């Protein structure tokens, strides 16, 4: 473990990524106690104030939006939805995808083929429209968004885990376990699962980045988390109407998404290089 941390920290970009991720997680966890203003308090007299570096007076570091709400406070509190959705959706995706992948890789006959066909069906449906349509049908809420994103992004896990299981299945320790009469669920969870974990960790870290973008896209289109909760995507959608005279309202939340996603990608890239260089071939 110490050796791993040492090798991780030898890349300065990866350390930058880790710092960004830690700041975002910290903001998500403690945001409401850190912010200088209530993120939902409107102040019409203070509407569309530019950020402080534009040389204006005032107390709003990153300016205010069209309702006079403090953008800095909304960014900090908005981290919560992004991180919560990103991580929870990835947990769901990984459970579904790894289960499918283990079964499809070990039982290559019918179950395997059916599960692989499911992945092709999933890939044939444009993800964004599927997510939007389901959100419209079941109604947008935090948990629905997590479920939708989680249940539509398991394909990569299934493919990678299956490919690894097809190889592992032929190895002596698995064959021996099988001959000793150990049950299939036991082989899958005790013998195969630990051996695919490094791939799962790498895919997960990169998928969190994608999920953050997906969540913000759904929010931007008005089918994400209900508007009372500040989210980065909703903030961009609201700021879009003022792009001509108050560019910061839409720009700043985008920078927050971009930096968070980039930080997560940097961490994921480093984990991939250290844990599983072969995975470079399987991203989609």
């Amino acid at each position, binding site marked *: 473990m110490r050796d791993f941390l040492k090798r991780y920290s030898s890349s300065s970009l990866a350390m930058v990524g880790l710092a960004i991720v830690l700041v975002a997680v910290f903001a998500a966890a403690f945001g409401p106690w850190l912010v200088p203003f209530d993120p939902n308090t409107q102040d019409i007299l203070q509407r569309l104030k530019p950020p402080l570096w534009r040389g204006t007076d005032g107390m709003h570091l990153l300016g205010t939006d069209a309702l006079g709400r403090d953008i800095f406070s909304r960014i900090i509190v908005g981290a919560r939805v992004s991180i919560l959705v990103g991580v929870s959706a990835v947990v769901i995706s990984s459970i579904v995808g790894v289960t499918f992948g283990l079964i499809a890789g070990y039982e290559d006959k019918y179950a395997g083929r059916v599960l692989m*066909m*499911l992945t*092709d*069906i999933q*890939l*044939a*449906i*444009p*993800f*964004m*429209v*599927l997510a*939007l*349509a*389901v959100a*419209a*049908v*079941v*109604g947008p809420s935090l948990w629905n968004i997590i479920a939708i994103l989680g249940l539509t992004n398991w394909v990569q896990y299934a493919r990678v885990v299956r490919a690894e299981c097809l190889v592992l299945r032929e190895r002596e320790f698995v064959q021996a376990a099988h001959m000793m009469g150990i049950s299939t669920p036991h082989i899958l969870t005790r013998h195969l699962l630990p051996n695919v974990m490094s791939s799962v960790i790498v895919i997960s870290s990169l998928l969190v*980045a994608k999920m953050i*973008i997906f969540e*913000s*896209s759904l929010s*931007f*289109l*008005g*089918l994400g988390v209900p508007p009372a909760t500040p989210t980065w*995507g909703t903030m*961009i959608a609201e700021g*879009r109407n003022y*792009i*001509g005279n108050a*560019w910061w309202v*839409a*720009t700043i*939340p*985008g920078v927050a*998404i*971009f930096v968070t*996603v*980039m930080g997560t*990608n*940097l961490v994921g*890239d480093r984990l991939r290089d250290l844990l599983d260089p072969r995975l*470079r*071939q399987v*991203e*989609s």
Partner: protein
Amino acid sequence: MADFLISRLLYAAAVLLGVSVAVFFLIRIGGDPSALFLPPEAPVEEIERFRRLMGFDRPLAVQYFDFLGRALQGDFGMSLRYDQPAMKLVLERVPATLQLGATALLMSLVISIPLAILAAAKRGSAIDRASLLASLLGQSFPAFWLAIMLILLFSETFRLLPPSGRGTWQQLIMPAIVLATYSTAIITRLLRSSMIEVLQSDYVRTARGKGVKESRIILSHALRNAAIPTLTVIGLQVGALLGGAVITEEVFAYPGVGRLAIQAIANRDFTVVQAFVVLMAALIVTINLLVDLSYGLLDPRLRKGK
């Protein structure tokens, strides 16, 4: 080869059948589909009438086979909003999306292929590191935000390009850039690492030993072999491009199928959504089928037998 072709075709058909089941149940996950099509304030009698009109009161299996039978003839029912056949509305918008998608794909190939080749050939150089950084950045932009930033820059500030619509080539530039960004990043990255792997292989070393020119090694030995994994990803990227077109078209008010789908979802016009999903799925499955078949052209080993 014929066996291979037939088995791939049958598989593609089975996948599309699966898509039809998914699309059928899509409007039924919330329970009664009638409530979905009608506004929330619709009176009970009207919902009841609508349910009988649409046949939602029949057994589920009967409804599905009816849906499938019509879908096979391209009939997805009427759009409740536009009072026109749903599939006709989608098909009318297809050329716009294909134009945008093809422009974006071309753009990303023109940038990513030379960049990846250069980066792999000069591994560790400034251009290699720049290509890695660029693909990291390209993967981290939310498309809708990039679109707004381009509008802010090129339409609001410099007034060089129109912010929306379709018809002129100027209106195609910004949507195509937004759509191409992610694919360019992914393809550059993947082709680079495949090229690096191939350039370290025995046959490349042999070719070098025989004194084959480096440019020939890269372009004919390495690129051809690195193309196979890349092609798979390009196939998958077509799906991603069509999906990404949804958001891009919405921000630029570009009249393609993606914008139609978003409007249809907002208007509860679910027959149009169903027609859209099935058509896109057919397109994606066809493209992946072509990608599968083209492996044979790139790799002679796959051509013989199964």
